[in-house]
């Protein structure tokens, strides 16, 4: 299974967001980590793999966007023979879930590290971080 590592979370909203990695709380201050408005901060989170509803409780991460009052649950899974970063906004696993937007010419998920951008509207998208060393 390819690992997709988040290296940065860029909060472009004008309110704080909080991030929790349910799979490994140590990644997010043993609980949740807050990121101030209009700030991008370095972080290291391997996006949890989840391919079923039973293991979802422990195998996802959450991004709570205060501006919209939305909590995004985020995981990765293989769907249509491609690894995708997927999300839901109802605290539940879905097959396939919402695929987070990423520019079409970006490297495939699982081959590069990424950053997550929380756009001004509160939506999440994925951008490339750079080539792995």
């Amino acid at each position, binding site marked *: 299974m390819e690992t997709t590592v988040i290296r*940065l979370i*860029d909060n*472009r909203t004008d309110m704080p967001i909080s991030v929790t990695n349910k799979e490994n709380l140590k990644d997010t201050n043993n609980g949740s980590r807050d990121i101030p408005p*209009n*700030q*991008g*901060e*370095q972080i290291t989170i391997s996006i949890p793999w989840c391919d079923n509803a039973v293991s979802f409780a422990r195998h996802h991460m959450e991004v709570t966007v205060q501006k919209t009052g939305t909590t995004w649950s985020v995981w990765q899974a293989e769907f249509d023979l491609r690894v995708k970063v997927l999300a839901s906004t109802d605290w539940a696993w879905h097959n396939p879930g919402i695929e987070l937007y990423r520019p079409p010419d970006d490297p495939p998920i699982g081959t590069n590290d990424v*950053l997550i951008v929380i756009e001004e509207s509160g939506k999440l998208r994925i*951008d*490339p*971080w*750079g*080539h792995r060393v």
Partner: protein
Amino acid sequence: MPITTLTTIINSTEGQVRVANFENSAESVTCPARTTIDIGSKSKIGWTIPWCTDAASFVYRHIRVEVQARGAIYCIWQADRSGLDAIRISTDENWHDPGDVIAGVSFVGNLRALEISPSGVRLNWEYNRY
């Protein structure tokens, strides 16, 4: 000291933006309204954001951004002050200690895009595609 490099200017305002690196007189660009400019070249990937840790050297150690649509001037520099190594910004053309941290990806190192929008100035992470 980590080097932070500007590679792109994104002007999403309705007026032109002038950006000049006072540390290197060759680095100056005018960006028309709603335009993105790549300031890198084959020999140099972009502009290094100047380090500045005192008011005396500020005059030649900052990047100046003039935003026509807002009638505003922003000065940008890099400094490790008060335990935080970050890209900093002022709107009064003066150096400040420690200085306000710029919006966006303000920590030092790697590549950045400078985005000028109607709401202000921020740094975005820039992916090195080369």
